[in-house]
């Protein structure tokens, strides 16, 4: 009886695990496109998705279809697909039509391994994340994600992972309008990654619900370098002039390639000397380095009113 129970449990676990794994994997399994739709046509991600989406005749044309996605054509409707297995017409009225694995386009992975995009797309630039800055160095204790707020109100998912490794932290359902995400768990995960002796750079991948994806790469400050940084900063903090403290700290951060911190220090200095044109220029450059184009443009616009050199 005990053996039978264990067997059933294992079977159930395998079923649930494999089922979900297939679903995750199927996200990238391109199978075709919607050539045209007429009348009521609904779409859902998988058969388990509760709420179907009603497709728009004009806006949803050419939509890429993935394996396991489902379409349903209502009375008087029609859907024509181009699948990798061939053209497919879905007549009305019909139960849910599933894009089967047999329709999957072959050799996708081989093509991905062969090369990459040699042109620009929406994610080639203007990556909304500016902290950590791309190709910068980050101290785990200071790790906070900052991005240019999404006016579209998309929901963000952040994944932190080494290039070819497993995700060390995933943060889901973050409101894109917030502009920053301060997570203790993320800091802990990064600290643990460093404590485990890992030195490979990390990727912070942002995927939003509006279909955009971007990423930044950053390295972690080693414990030894972090101690040296603290000493260098303490030396700057002893300066009685507050403005000089920030400028000195900015210089220190720059030497450690901690660009987001450089920008923060210049911002703090700019508050003390808001009319310094030189400081403004440095702050603009610091934001350009991090990729914070919004703040950069804002400062550029205001630079006309600044007077002192």
């Amino acid at each position, binding site marked *: 009886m005990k053996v039978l129970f264990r067997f059933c449990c294992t079977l159930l676990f395998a079923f649930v695990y494999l089922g979900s794994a297939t679903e995750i994997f199927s996200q990238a399994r391109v199978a075709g*496109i919607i050539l045209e739709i007429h009348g009521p046509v609904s779409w859902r991600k998988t058969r388990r998705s509760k709420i179907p989406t009603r497709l728009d005749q*004009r806006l949803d044309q050419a939509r890429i279809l993935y394996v396991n996605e489902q379409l349903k054509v209502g009375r008087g409707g029609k859907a024509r697909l181009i699948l990798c297995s061939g053209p497919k017409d879905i007549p009305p009225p019909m139960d849910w039509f599933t894009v089967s694995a047999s329709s999957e386009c072959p*050799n996708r992975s*081989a*093509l991905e391994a062969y090369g990459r995009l*040699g042109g*620009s797309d929406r994610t080639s630039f203007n990556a909304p994340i500016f902290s950590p800055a791309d190709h910068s160095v980050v101290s785990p204790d200071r790790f906070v994600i900052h991005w240019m707020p999404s006016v579209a109100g998309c929901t963000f998912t952040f994944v932190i992972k080494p290039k070819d490794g497993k995700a060390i932290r995933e943060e889901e359902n973050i409101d894109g309008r917030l502009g920053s995400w301060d997570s203790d768990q993320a800091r802990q995960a990064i600290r643990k990654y460093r404590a485990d002796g890992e030195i490979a750079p990390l990727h912070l991948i942002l995927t939003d619900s509006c*279909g955009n994806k971007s990423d930044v790469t950053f390295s972690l400050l080693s414990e030894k370098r972090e101690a040296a940084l603290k000493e260098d900063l303490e030396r700057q903090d002893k300066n009685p002039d507050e403005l000089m403290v920030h400028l000195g700290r900015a210089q220190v951060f720059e030497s450690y390639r901690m660009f987001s911190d450089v920008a923060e220090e210049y911002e703090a200095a700019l508050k003390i000397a808001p009319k310094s044109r030189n400081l403004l220029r440095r702050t603009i450059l610091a934001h350009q380095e991090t990729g914070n184009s919004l703040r950069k443009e804002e400062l550029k616009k205001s630079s006309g009113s600044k007077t002192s050199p």
Partner: protein
Amino acid sequence: MKKRNKKTLPPPVEPQNDRRSSSLPAERRDSGILGDFLKGLLVIALILAAKVAFEHTEPGHQLEVAGYVYLQRHLAADDVPVQILDISDLGVEETHSNGRTYRATPRDTLEKLIQAIIDQEPRVIGIDIDFSPDANGYLTPDDQKFFQFCLDSGVPILLGVHRTQVLQPEAWLGDPRFEPLGASIIIPNETRKLPLTIRTSPQFKPGRAMGAALGTVFGEARCRVGEFLEQMGVAERQWNTELGAGGEIVEFPVDYSALDELMRNKTLRTTSPDLVREQGSRFHNKIVLIGRAALGEVKDTFPVAGQTQPISGVYIHASAAYTIAKAPLYELKWKSRLALDAIMSGGILLALIGIRLRFRNSASVRISTSKLQTLLTVIVVGAAIIFGVVLVRITCVLWTDFVLALGAVVLHPTIEHRLSRLWEFIKRTVPRFFLKLISESDEEVRK
């Protein structure tokens, strides 16, 4: 004997073999030459095998890349018919329509720029942006209108495709109507060869790649020597590379000699149609490539052998277009390279043996094998450098393993000498050692 020979016949100095053979009867002299010939053949075979094995090692690969870079430097770009319009200053626009958010390069600005270029009568226009639809359909609600504008423009226009290139080409831009516009903008990890066509399934027809398609529409250039060698089955201009199971990519070698010219003099960075009109002559009768080219501002940069900094994707497509339109390149087939190696070494050996046979009975001329071999090696290597390297612009053939091939020819005499000594050593020591091993010791005899 040595002294007497020197007195009676002063020059040239003979090697030991010939000195010995001169006093030998003619039959034994001939058999000595024949023995040298067979020994030479064996050494050639050994060296070729070693070369082939070395080619597959990392240092061997590095040497081939070095040869490739050296040859690329000898390719001089002249009359580059490509003009780049760098639109790095044109950002992605976020628009909202019907409750949806769209992020894409603004189509209306692109349309105005394209119209300004069309007015200058270019030969073909390519846009190095991924226009393929995504999981939400077309990237903007105006995409179909924009595609139709491109179709009706009267000038061949190619639009970049990346996301959907795994599908059949008629679906690349979401509708078979737009198939003539689609061109893949994939760039392989190894940029020495770029794709001409891509086919992910044997059931699909091949889809075009941007650079090659631009060059083809402009008009393919010809190279007579290369064509002749291709007809002879010696060289190839295109390679069929397997893509997974059943897929296929046709590739061609790329001439990057135009890169400098493209970056310095053939790039106009603007988003203003007026400036395009002002500089109209730059676009007239040209291959025009629109894309984001500014290094440090784009993510699509790629390493190119021989270049110190990574190169933006748009310049790689431009180099591909230039290669097809102006400077086709061929590469020697693997078998031809092997045959060439054998011909060079074998040629030296045959000439050496021929000359030795010709003068074997001569009393006045005695041949120094080593000097003759050096002279023949210099002649063969010199000729190979002239035809294979210096005249690469005329032959259009990239003989990328010339460093290794010529190295093998140059090292041949040394290797042969070392092998002979090794063989002598083996002949001397092994039988002795073997006899010692199997013979009875004195103690055993006594017993």
